[in-house]
């Protein structure tokens, strides 16, 4: 697989070279211009709304930028402060890492499980699929407020349901030990989005593989672990990479569910981006916030890189 990758890459490089060398026919040139014209909305959008701000942010992380009056170069002072003085930086990093570590695998397992359940030909399956997908459509503040009520310690539905099976539920959003699990639980509710991806992949798994496995006497578990799972690994890989990136950016939930971004009981919901937001818009310390965003960028980039490196070991193409 790796060889295929490199050979493709080489081919592309060759093409690029010839692209420059070759004297182009008039026709080809014209086509190229048209091509560029049609992708220009993306190129312009990417440059002006993504790339330039990123460059600006990179430069800003070495300054004391406060948005309106100052932007002096201060070298690595922001980074030094982050790792040696700012107590909340480590708290927020820990909270975020905790959330990512549980949220990413749990949602992946949850959505595969759900997709397998819904990949049947039984009566009313379409209705079930729609119902399980619905939470993925709903999002934002309304959902968080709804969950705050569901998670209410005495009258909330979650604890009421737990009490039916004899469990005395925790205080969820009021107990620092349980705030992050509460949020992870809440996110599990909307695995429908990823479920849809898996469902589509599951339906592409060739039927004859199952048939021949059945002839050989394989049961459901065997078929799942030896046929289904290997064949959907590319999507699992994609899901894990994107949801890791997404999970690191958790902000809204914590901002809404703690009073105006204060970080919840004992700062247990002070996530990385929330701390960054406070630095930028409460303390006007935008340079510091930019430095924080650079660190997050590096963390996410390295994790994605590790993911890509590990992929050949378990992803089947």
């Amino acid at each position, binding site marked *: 697989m790796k060889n295929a990758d490199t050979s493709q890459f080489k081919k592309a490089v060759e093409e690029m070279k010839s692209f420059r060398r070759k004297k182009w026919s008039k026709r080809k040139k014209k086509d190229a211009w048209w091509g560029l014209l049609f992708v220009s*909305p993306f190129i312009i959008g990417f440059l002006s709304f993504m790339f330039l701000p990123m460059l600006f942010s990179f430069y800003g992380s070495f300054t004391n930028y406060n948005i309106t009056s100052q932007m002096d170069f201060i070298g690595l002072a922001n980074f030094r402060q982050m790792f040696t003085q700012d107590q909340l930086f480590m708290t927020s990093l820990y909270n975020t890492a905790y959330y990512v570590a549980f949220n990413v695998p749990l949602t992946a397992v949850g959505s595969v499980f759900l997709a397998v359940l819904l990949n049947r030909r039984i009566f009313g399956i379409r209705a079930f699929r729609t119902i399980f997908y619905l939470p993925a459509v709903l999002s934002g503040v309304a959902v968080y407020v709804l969950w705050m009520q569901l998670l209410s310690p005495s009258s909330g539905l979650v604890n009421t349901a737990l009490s039916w099976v004899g469990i005395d539920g925790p205080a969820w959003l009021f107990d620092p030990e349980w705030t992050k699990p509460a949020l992870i639980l809440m996110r599990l509710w909307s695995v429908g989005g990823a479920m849809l991806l898996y469902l589509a992949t599951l339906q592409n798994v060739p039927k004859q593989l199952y048939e021949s496995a059945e002839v050989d006497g394989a049961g459901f578990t065997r078929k799942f672990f030896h046929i289904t799972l290997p064949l959907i690994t590319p999507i699992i890989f994609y899901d894990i990479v994107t949801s890791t990136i997404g999970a690191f950016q958790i902000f809204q939930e914590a901002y809404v569910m703690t009073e105006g971004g204060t970080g919840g009981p*004992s*700062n247990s919901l002070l996530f990385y981006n929330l701390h960054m937001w406070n630095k930028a818009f409460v303390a006007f310390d935008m340079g510091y916030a930019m430095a924080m965003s650079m660190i997050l960028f590096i963390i996410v980039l390295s994790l994605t890189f590790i993911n890509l490196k590990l992929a050949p070991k378990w992803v089947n193409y």
Partner: protein
Amino acid sequence: MSTIAWKKHIKRGLILTSTPLILAACADDAESDPAGEDTPDTEENAGSENSGETVQLEFWSFWGSGPRRETIEAIIEDFNNENDNIEVEYVYQPWGDIWTKSLAAIAGGNAPDVIVQDINSVRQRAEAEQATNLQQFIEDDSFSENFYPQLWDTVIYEDEAYAVPFNTDTQVIFYNKDAFEEAGLDPESPPTTWAELEEDARALDIQSGDDWEQIGFYPRWNIGPDVWALNADEGVSWFDDEGNVTINTPEKVAALEWMLEQQDHYGRDTINQFEAEFGSGVADPFISGLVAMRGQNLNYYTNLRENAPEDLNYGVFRLPEYEEGSGHWTWGGGFVLEIPENTENPEASFEFLQYLTSTEVQERFGMNSFDIMANIEANENLTSHPDLEEQGQEMYQMAQESLETTVITPVPLTAPDYIPLVNAEIDAAFLGEKTAQEALDAAQESVENLVEQNQ
């Protein structure tokens, strides 16, 4: 040229001209606000001030509905009618957006002309050059005397004014007079010290089995540990006047210990359960009779006026003294009016700002919203205003009294984001992980460390 060639050219021309249009539309989309507010460019009005034309001003606030919006709109209409050369346009911005949006607008050079801002961060904005220095427009030195001194203090940065106070509030305790009577207490003599408060609270508690039918008083509901701490410490908040960190003073430790005792009395689980229910807004616990005394902003009166049944017999008293004679210290917040930096017509804006803070207009705003106004005379007039019902007048009398000992706590420039540090330690104390002394010692250290980082 053949017709085919023509058609080609026309097609190409159409695509070429439409692409930038689409792009422009996209760009507009990204900048425009979510509320879809129309925000005309102030540059249009550039230089019109001297030519005798009408100056257009844009005024941002978060008063989106109810009496505040109606009143401010009526006030602006009157101002526009009285002033031929100034036309103010009222723009509502949602509470959650207004200040991040104005910050972006100031940085982008298209700020509104006048904006309602948080009273606690005026100095921060002055330092960051987000607000216009208003000292140049204040001709009369006695102008500042129109306002409560602690409010005026918040707008001063390096001896000059950068905002004008608009309204404020003060934390007090509402109590159910009928519940007092049932508990055998005199409804006309509410508690005046912490000891009396606790004693009355115990008399008001009603418990049946494990369930609480009536909670006498739980101090942490709607009044923060910071307020009890400054009450105990004779009005000194987490920072003293010189900016020293004063978190772990003996008085504040004692105050936190007292709060922890109150939590132990009811039990942490009880408190959590009730808090979650209040949070989901099912019913107001004071109106429903669940709590007999409840700390609130004085403006809670508007809520009672609208939602409480006719027969709810209630009164209000000042935050009690920690010890007899230590003072009824309490806390308040509020809002100011600011002119952002680099606007076209600061002079006309200041004229509007003066209008909004004049006694007459302040009185009018207060009468309709029951806000405590920043203008002293306006509040004084409201204490006996013939158009106000008796209880409304009483609220303003209470405001006058309580404001004498109301502390405003602007964020210190050396530690603008100190709050999460202190709150985490106080939470640890309420969770039983630390004693009051340990928690406040740790908070003191963290905040001192933050101050050091910013120096």
